[in-house]
Structure formats: structure tokens, C-alpha cells
């Protein structure tokens, strides 16, 4: 809503308050003012001039030589190029020395040998936004109506000194979609009375009843329809002041009939529609639901196919308007119109909203109907428009109004206990002050001590319950005046849950190892949705959750894995020459088996990582460590070690992963994720270089987590260390051998570490040597050599039996 302050002054006294101060007060008390716009930059020395004569320039065909009376002793000779300049016009003249917007200085000049002492101006040159300039003067100079006085400054005449406040209205404050509503709001803020417009009406003897019948089929959808008839009007431009206000409010003036309906729409917030009575081809107005497939050509010259959802105004036969949204072309007011049927109606907001949604047509009228209008202003707005048509279109208004009326105009009654208000706000507002606030708001009330009964004006449809009154009192009293307190009573210890703490711990660990946290999108595209889904997730055959109306193909499905979008981020960096990346992310994936979703999917928290490029680089010491399988395995092992959760890694074949460099991660025999190198084909597809990833079900981790560490006593007795290297077939897994050593050596073997891997010269083809360090310890006593030796030999024997591996000496 654009609020012209010059217009507003007609209803409430705002003299002496600058637009900036007023905007600040309104913002703090009621409605956010988004901006202040001045109609035109300051200009000076521009006055009304009378074109006494207008002849062709002797040396230029397209220029005119005008003698203009500007109220000074001598006429000004001005050369004007506008096509519409003519003798007898009253025009805006920038005299020599004048300054126009854009700091454009007017000087005496010679054009083609003839002197020109000033400039005749268009509205654009005076600073008015092109898009609001009426079409008839858009291509040339502006021509005043005859009643303006020569020599008068044009600034007030053209409302150039106006400031316009741009209101950012919240949906509840539809009352401020009208100048009167704004006036009540400003009056409450400034503690001023509201001056209402003149609503008197002079009518002729003849009654509308003799010419029009009104029929409404469904009072639910259209509780009030009023038809006024104004005869013998003359279609011409509206008065200058009205056109000025419309332009300030962002509406382009058209002609007096259209302008008057728009003016009253803005003044009262009541949409009105003017039909050309003679084009109705009937004397009947019937409001009904459209038939399916029924057609109407609306004012914007679009043919629209209707459904039963749409409410239409008809002449008893055919639609002549889409109710509350837009008129029909067949009954439109034209330059030839002489008799106008004026509609003032109340339509059901939901019905209008449905039509707007369906047709995509949104107008000043429909916006107000959708948000709800004041039932007590419907007829008054009609009267006001009829009066203006009489005054500015020369029409005679027929007596009475033909109406269908089932409209509820009762004020809502809300009770308000002042003590309760104070209790809820933390204030000590007296009953007397409370009454004063209600007076400022213009609300009638009965009072019995702290008991208030409020009769809420119908213009404030948003106020229905006590809490609404709480807000009214609070904002007028001023939020600045509320004290600062801290809650009393119940105190509880806040904090993080175990799960949230664990999440932070995991993040801390990963960051400590050198990983950066990312945030990627949860929505991904069709191509990536099934990429790199962890095997245990895939096993449950999840169906991707698809949006009904995605905004783009890139973000259409809820992810089944964090990895695809995470890898997109890695690729994004690579494309920008950032080739060393170590990322992780914790977030939800969305799992369901349903093809058509009927219940919420399982949102499983997962932890994923992606690493590529150099892991470590220390060039001058010739140390460069690229990311490899064992780097990410080390990170994952470290994490589970830190959390004291044993996990197993098993070689696995997983689609989109390198078949020889990929392992599942299991906990207690259940797969909870995987890690490894991406398949080179996928790497290529995603524009990646060698990249390693991991993906872990965080919920399994959370489930297994205990924040009480598994503590064991520090051993008192010395340990014994033994090394052994086995020569084994290349395809024997070092880890499998380690497991056998551990299980065979238990309970004396406390720890087994692999410390060497050798292939080559001294070994037969297809063999490798893996060296293990075994740590023996007995918590109860000092170990004896023969105990250790016995165990050691047993291990060598078992490994030999199982893996055909023998000791390398």
C-alpha cells in the first residue's frame, strides 16, 4: 500500500511531522514502513503559463514559437517541440533560472536563430514516474484544466511536494488497504481525531427500482449487492487533484468514471465496479456461480473459461463480470458511455481467493476482497462514488439503491480484563490509561472497573479475541515502554542430550583430523538420487521421496545419501582450482519403502566424508602424501577408536566404487556404512580426480554409544613383545591373519600390530611378507618366557594351518 501524505492530510492532522518521523512512529507502533518516496525531486520557478499564441518556428518545421503569459509584466517567448502544444492552453512553464529534477537548469537560449526564454514541461520533466503519467499527456506537455491561475506555482497543483510511504502490510492488517484505515491507524498513534469524507448525496426523483433488478443466488458467496444508477454522465478526465492522488498511489489515471471507482477503492478499501448500463442489454443483475465451461472476455481482453468455483455477475443471461476480480469487456465503460450502473458489493473472501488462484488474475479489488473488507463501508463507498460521479462527471444519481442484503454488520464484542492485560504484559497500566488507549484506537467500550467490554469496529476484522486486544493495548502503549524482566518460577537445567553431545564430539574429532564441515542441499536430482547409497540402506529398497512441484530439476528428490551432493561440492572446488579437499557432513537422509508417500519417511542421520588431492604436503622436505584408502580408513578407525566402538572392515563390491578399494564398515556383524575410492568412471562423470569417501549410519553409532568410558586398570606387570613375519600368498588378507593371531593368542596377547609389508626380490612370485608385533601381558602376574613361547608357537602353527603361511627368518 502506497500512502500519499498529502492525501492522508484530508482525514487526519499530520502537519508539522516530517515524513521520516511519521514513518518511524508508524513502524514502531503498527505497520512496517518499507520506504519513503518523494513524488518529484525539488524543482523551482515552475509556474502556470497561458499560451497566448503558438506559431511555427520560422526555421524549423517541428518546433513551435509560443508567446506565454506567466503572470509577469512581459510574456515569455518560448520554443516548444511538443506536438500537443496549442494556443489557449494553460501549461507548466519553467522560467529562466528554474531548476528541474536532475538539477536541470533552465537558461535563455537561441534555437535556430530565435530566442527561447524558458521551457514548457511534460509531467515526466517535472519528475513524475513515466508509468503513472496519463496516456493522453504521455507524449507531450501537460495541459492544465482551465481553472488554474496563471503565475501560480505548479508544485502544489501537481502534488509534486508529496511524500509517499510504502507500507509493508502483514496479512492481518487488511484494514490499512484503505486511506481511511490508515487514517484511523495514524490517528491512534498521534492521538488525533479522524475526519471522514463527505457522504451526502443529492439524488433525482427517479428511482433505480424503475430500471434495475438485483438477484443473488447464494447469499453465502455474496451477502450484499448494491446497484446505483447514475444517468447522463460525461466521460472526461477526472479532476486534477484526484489524478494526482491516484498517481501518488501508483495508479495511472484513465477517465473520470474509472478514476472515481479507483479513488473510492483506495479511500474506503471498497472495490466498486462501473458498468455501462446501456450495454447490459437487460435491466437485471443476477449473481450466480458460473457454469462449467462458461466463457467471459475480461477487461484485459483475455477470454477465460470458467468453472462452478467462480462467482459471476450476469445480466440474467451472460456473465458481465468475474465477481470481485475483473469486469467483462462487454459491459465496459467507454468514452461514449452516458449511463453508469455502479456496483458496491461484498463477496465471500474464500470464493474470491479460489478464483484468483485458478485464473492467476490478481487486482486491487480481488486483493481487498480476499483479505476481507469492512461490511459497514460497502454501501457508504457506493454513495461516495455516486456523489463524485455527480460532481465530476455531471451525472444525476437516481434515488435509492437496489440491493440484495444479507450482510452481517454487527460489531464483535470482546471482553478485556485490564488486570489480565497487565499480568500478561508485565505492566502497570491504570484502568484510566487503558480507556484512553481504546479511545485513541476509536473503539467503543463499556467499563466496570477493570472489566472492559469492547465493541470492535467492523473495519478491524482481525480483532476477535482477548489476545488481539492485548496486542492493540501493547502497541499503542508502546513496546519501548514494556519493562525488561526474566521469567520467574520453574527453573530447569537446560542442556544437550547425549545424542547432541555425541554429534558435537564426532564433529570435533573429524575437524581435529583435518576435515572441514560442509552443508549441502537435501534435495538432489534424478541422476544422482540412487548414486552411492550405502549397501545396508539399499537392501531395504528405499523409494526416493519426490516433490510434487519442484522448483528445478536439480532439487527434486530428497537424498538417500549425503555423498552425491557432497561430491558436487568437491567438483565445484576442483573447477575453481581447489584440488585438495577434505570434507565431511552430518545430516539426514530420507528413507521410505512407499512409492506414494502416506507417512513421514524415516529421517536417518548419517555421516559422510569425501577426500581428494593431497592430504599432507611439505615440499621442501620432499614430503607429499596424497589421500589414499588408508588415509580415510585411518580417520574412520580413529573415530571409532575414540568412541570405543569396535568395528570391522570387509572388502566389498559396491556400485560406483572402485571394486578393489572398497570396504563395508560393520558393528556387531551389522553393516553400518562403507568407505573406499570412487569408481574411476564415476570420478570422470562428476569431473573428479581420485576421490575417497566414507558414509556411516550415525544412528547406529548413537545407539552403541555410551558416555561412560570402558576403563581398565593400567597393568602393573611388565609386557613382553614378540615380532614375527609371515610369508603368505598375495591374496591372503593381512587383517584376516591378524584376527587369527588375536583369537589364538587370547587371553595373553593384548595387542597385535602390523608393522611391515614386503613384496619383491627375495620372495617367490605371488608371495608377500607381513610382519606382526605381538604384545603379551598378564594383568595378574609376571609372564614367564616358556608361557609366551608356547603361545607364540601355537600361533605360528595355527596361521600356517589356516593360511599356508610360514615364518620368514
Amino acid at each position: 500500500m502506497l500512502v500519499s501524505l498529502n492525501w492522508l492530510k484530508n482525514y487526519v492532522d499530520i502537519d508539522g511531522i516530517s515524513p521520516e518521523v511519521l514513518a518511524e512512529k508508524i513502524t514502531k507502533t503498527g505497520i512496517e514502513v518499507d520506504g519513503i518516496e518523494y513524488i518529484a525531486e525539488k524543482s523551482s520557478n515552475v509556474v502556470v503559463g497561458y499560451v497566448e499564441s503558438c506559431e511555427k518556428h520560422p526555421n524549423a518545421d517541428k518546433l513551435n514559437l509560443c508567446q506565454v503569459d506567466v503572470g509577469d509584466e512581459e510574456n515569455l517567448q518560448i520554443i516548444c517541440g511538443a506536438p500537443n502544444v496549442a494556443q489557449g492552453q494553460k501549461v507548466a512553464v519553467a522560467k529562466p533560472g528554474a531548476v528541474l529534477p536532475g538539477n536541470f537548469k533552465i537558461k535563455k537560449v537561441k534555437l535556430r536563430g530565435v530566442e527561447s526564454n524558458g521551457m514548457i514541461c511534460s509531467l515526466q520533466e517535472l519528475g513524475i514516474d513515466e508509468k503513472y503519467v496519463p496516456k493522453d499527456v504521455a507524449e507531450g506537455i501537460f495541459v492544465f484544466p482551465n481553472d488554474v491561475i496563471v503565475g501560480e506555482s505548479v508544485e502544489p497543483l501537481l502534488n509534486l511536494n508529496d511524500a509517499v510511504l510504502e507500507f509493508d502490510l502483514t496479512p492481518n492488517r487488511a484494514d490499512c488497504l484503505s486511506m481511511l484505515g490508515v487514517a484511523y491507524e495514524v490517528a491512534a498513534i498521534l492521538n488525533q481525531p479522524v475526519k471522514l469524507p463527505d457522504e451526502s448525496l443529492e439524488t433525482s426523483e427517479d428511482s433505480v427500482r424503475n430500471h434495475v433488478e438485483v438477484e443473488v443466488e447464494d447469499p453465502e458467496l455474496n451477502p450484499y449487492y448494491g446497484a446505483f444508477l447514475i444517468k447522463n454522465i460525461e466521460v472526461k478526465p477526472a479532476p486534477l487533484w484526484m489524478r494526482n492522488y491516484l498517481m501518488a498511489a501508483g495508479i495511472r489515471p484513465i477517465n473520470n468514471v474509472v478514476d472515481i471507482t479507483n479513488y473510492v477503492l483506495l479511500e474506503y478499501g471498497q472495490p466498486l465496479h462501473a458498468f455501462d448500463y446501456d450495454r447490459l442489454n437487460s435491466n437485471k443483475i443476477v449473481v450466480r456461480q458460473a457454469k462449467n465451461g462458461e466463457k467471459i472476455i475480461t477487461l484485459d481482453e483475455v477470454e477465460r473459461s470458467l468453472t462452478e468455483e467462480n462467482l459471476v455477475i450476469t445480466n440474467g443471461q451472460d456473465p458481465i463480470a468475474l465477481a470481485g476480480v475483473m469486469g467483462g469487456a462487454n459491459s465496459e465503460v467507454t468514452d461514449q458511455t452516458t449511463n453508469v450502473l455502479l456496483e458496491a458489493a461484498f463477496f465471500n473472501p474464500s470464493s474470491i481467493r479460489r478464483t484468483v488462484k485458478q485464473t492467476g488474475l490478481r487486482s486491487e479489488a480481488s486483493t481487498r476482497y480476499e483479505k476481507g473488507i469492512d461490511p459497514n463501508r460497502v454501501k457508504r463507498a457506493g454513495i461516495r462514488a455516486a456523489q463524485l460521479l455527480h460532481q465530476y462527471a455531471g451525472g444525476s444519481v437516481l434515488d435509492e439503491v437496489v440491493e440484495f442484503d444479507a450482510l452481517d454488520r454487527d460489531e464483535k464484542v470482546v471482553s478485556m480484563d485490564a488486570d489480565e492485560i497487565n499480568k500478561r504484559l508485565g505492566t502497570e497500566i491504570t484502568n484510566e490509561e487503558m480507556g484512553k488507549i481504546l479511545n485513541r484506537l476509536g473503539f467503543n467500550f463499556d467499563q466496570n472497573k477493570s472489566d472492559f467490554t469492547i465493541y470492535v469496529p467492523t473495519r478491524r476484522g482481525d480483532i476477535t479475541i482477548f489476545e488481539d486486544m492485548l496486542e492493540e493495548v501493547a502497541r499503542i502503549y508502546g513496546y519501548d515502554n514494556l519493562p525488561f524482566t526474566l521469567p520467574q518460577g520453574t527453573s530447569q537445567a537446560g542442556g544437550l542430550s547425549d545424542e547432541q553431545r555425541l554429534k558435537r564430539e564426532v564433529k570435533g574429532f573429524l575437524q581435529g583430523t583435518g576435515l572441514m564441515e560442509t552443508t549441502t542441499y537435501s534435495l538432489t536430482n534424478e541422476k544422482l538420487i540412487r548414486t552411492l547409497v550405502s549397501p545396508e540402506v539399499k537392501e531395504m529398497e528405499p523409494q526416493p521421496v519426490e516433490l510434487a512441484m519442484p522448483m528445478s530439476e536439480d532439487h527434486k528428490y530428497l537424498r538417500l545419501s549425503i555423498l552425491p551432493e557432497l561430491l558436487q561440492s568437491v567438483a565445484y572446488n576442483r573447477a575453481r582450482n581447489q584440488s585438495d579437499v577434505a570434507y565431511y557432513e552430518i545430516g539426514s537422509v530420507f528413507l521410505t519403502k512407499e512409492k506414494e508417500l502416506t507417512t513421514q519417511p524415516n529421517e536417518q542421520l548419517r555421516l559422510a566424508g569425501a577426500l581428494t588431492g593431497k592430504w599432507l604436503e611439505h615440499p621442501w622436505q620432499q614430503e607429499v602424501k596424497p589421500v589414499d584408502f588408508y588415509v580415510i580408513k585411518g580417520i574412520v578407525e580413529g573415530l571409532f577408536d575414540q568412541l570405543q566402538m569396535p568395528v570391522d572392515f570387509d572388502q566389498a563390491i559396491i556400485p560406483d566404487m572402485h571394486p578393489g578399494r572398497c570396504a563395508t564398515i560393520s558393528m556387531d556383524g551389522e553393516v553400518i556404512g562403507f568407505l573406499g575410492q570412487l569408481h574411476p568412471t564415476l570420478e570422470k562423470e562428476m569431473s573428479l580426480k581420485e576421490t575417497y569417501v566414507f558414509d556411516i549410519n550415525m544412528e547406529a553409532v548413537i545407539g552403541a554409544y555410551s558416555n561412560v568410558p570402558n576403563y581398565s586398570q593400567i597393568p602393573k606387570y611388565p609386557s613382553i613383545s614378540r615380532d614375527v613375519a609371515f610369508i603368505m600368498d598375495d591374496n591372503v588378507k593381512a587383517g584376516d591373519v591378524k584376527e587369527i593371531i588375536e583369537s589364538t593368542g587370547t587371553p595373553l596377547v593384548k595387542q597385535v600390530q602390523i608393522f611391515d609389508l614386503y613384496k619383491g626380490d627375495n620372495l617367490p612370485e605371488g608371495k608377500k611378507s607381513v610382519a606382526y608385533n605381538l604384545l603379551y601381558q598378564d594383568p595378574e602376574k609376571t609372564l614367564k618366557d616358556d608361557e609366551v613361547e608356547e603361545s607364540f608357537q601355537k600361533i605360528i602353527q595355527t596361521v600356517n594351518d589356516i593360511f599356508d603361511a610360514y615364518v620368514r627368518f
Partner: protein
Amino acid sequence: MKEELQLLEKEAIEKIEQATDMKELQSIKVAYLGKKGSLTSVLRGMGKLSKEERPVIGELANKVRETITNAIEQKNEGLEQAVLEEKLQKEAIDVTLPGRPVPTGGPHLLTKIVEEIEDLFIGMGFEVREGPEVETDYFNFEALNLPKDHPARDMQDTFYITNELLLRTHTSPVQARTMKAYDDSKSVKMICPGKVYRRDTDDATHSHQFTQIEGLFVDKDVKMSDLKGILDTFAKKLFGEDRQIRLRPSFFPFTEPSVEMDISCKVCNGDGCSVCKGSGWIEILGAGMVHPNVLSMAGYDPKVYSGFAFGMGPERIAMLKYGIKDIRQFYTNDVRFLKQFHNA
């Protein structure tokens, strides 16, 4: 003999002083004090001395031995020191060469902001709750006083999956979920961070996915001045002790009254500048007193219980704090962006 001994001592001391390494010193030691050394051979001639002379010379000989031994030891220490010094000199390195880098990671900027806010409210006795990102129409809208036909639903463009399921447009459903999860005699004091989604085209100021933090406090006799007090405490801790707050009217279907909280602009201290668009104030969050319909739908009697709720956007806070101009930067994960905030 006495002269002989004195000469020997003088000669030995001279040689010791001139010795340049430990090998030479060792041979001096052998030459004078060894079994076949000079001192020993001098002493062998003791038998020829008289009874009176013998102890005198003996004493002198011991003295000479002691002097030479001390001198050798002293010289030895000096030489050892010199050797060590020389060795250390040779070991000197260029300390200006760069050290071996350790891998450095860090949290995402949004996590930092969220955790900072979490910790602030935890300190004020709040717990942290989470809720699903795929929500029901009921919890996302209806339980928050936004029935199906409510015009305010237009304020938010929603990603629907089906008629009843959608991506949550705000973290507010967690309010209703938390209250429903509690029995109705318990006070609620929680904040809820999380991802939310709106049907927007991504550009510098819009993102189809972003973050919100919701707060809710419900108890008997919660006052609007309590909301003002809590928000003031929060704003001062997050943005600095010298910041002022102000509340101004707004509208949210699930609160009544509804307000927006501004903080005084840090750049201009309230005088007006380009950051605050001349107003001196910067909008930080939306808040209000919980609407009675929301309370009663969640099983709390609005005649007995009252409360306040607030919600804010960590992206917006981060953008204000660090002057980030494009919201998409939170989601493209450019290393050069992420790195900058690891120690912010």
C-alpha cells in the same frame, strides 16, 4: 732430583696447554703419568736418595702428579666443550623455513552460529530439541493456527510432497511437537535449530533450503516483558553489550501479539547508514506470545499457561556479522569460504 721434577712439571704443563685435541692430550698423559712415563722413571731413581730426602721428594712427586692430572682434566673438559660446541654449530638449521603442516579442519559457519546460539540459551536453562524435516500439514500449519484456507499460508511457498506431507517451511512445528510430547503440567523451555525449505528460486538473497532456530518458553504466568528480557540478554551476548533492542508489531499466525526484534546498528550506532538502510536498526528475529489456539491444540490450557516463542535465521545473522552478500555461499562449500570461519 728436585730440579728434575720441577722441570718435568713445567714441561708437562706447557705441553698440556698447547694440546689441541683429546688424542694429543691422551698421549701427553701417557708420556708423563703412564707406567713408562717420565714421572714414573724419575721416581724410580728415588732409591738412591737419602732417608731425609726421600719423604720430601716423595711429597713433591705427588704434588707434581696431582698438578699434571688436574691440568689434563681441566684441559680435557675444555676440549670436550669445544668439540660439543663445534658439533652443535654444525647442526644449526634455518629456522625461517616453514614447519611441517598439520591437517586443519573446522566447522561450517552455520554450525558455529547455531552452536553459539544453542550455548547461549542452554546457559539460560533451555534444552535443544529437534524435529523432522518432512512434516505433516497438521504440524507445519494447522497446529500453528494456520488452517487450510488461511490467507497467511500464502506468505510461505511450500514444497509439498503429497496433500498432507511437505518439507517444513519453518522450525515452528517443533513447538507443537514438543508441547504434545510433554504432559500438560510441564513447562517447556526449548530451542530448536534445523533445516527448513521454501519454494524459492535460489539467488543472492533467497535459498530453497536454509536454517532456522526456534525458541519456545511456556509456563504459568509468562509475561511479554519476560520475552523482552530474554531477547535483550540474548542480543547483548551475541552482538555485544552495547547493543539496544526494540520490538515492533508484526504478524505471525501462531503468536499474538507478534513482534519483530531489531537491534541497534553496530556500524552507525543508530544514526543510520547503508547497512541498516538509514533506519539505525537491523531486523534480527520474529517473536511473540504463543497464540491461545496453539496452546490449546497442544493440550495446554491457555487460561492457565502462557508463553512466548521466537525464531531467527542463522544465515541472516552470519551475513550481518561478517558482511556476506550471497546466501548461496553457505551451500556451495567453496574451500576458500569455509576456511575463513574456522576460527571466527
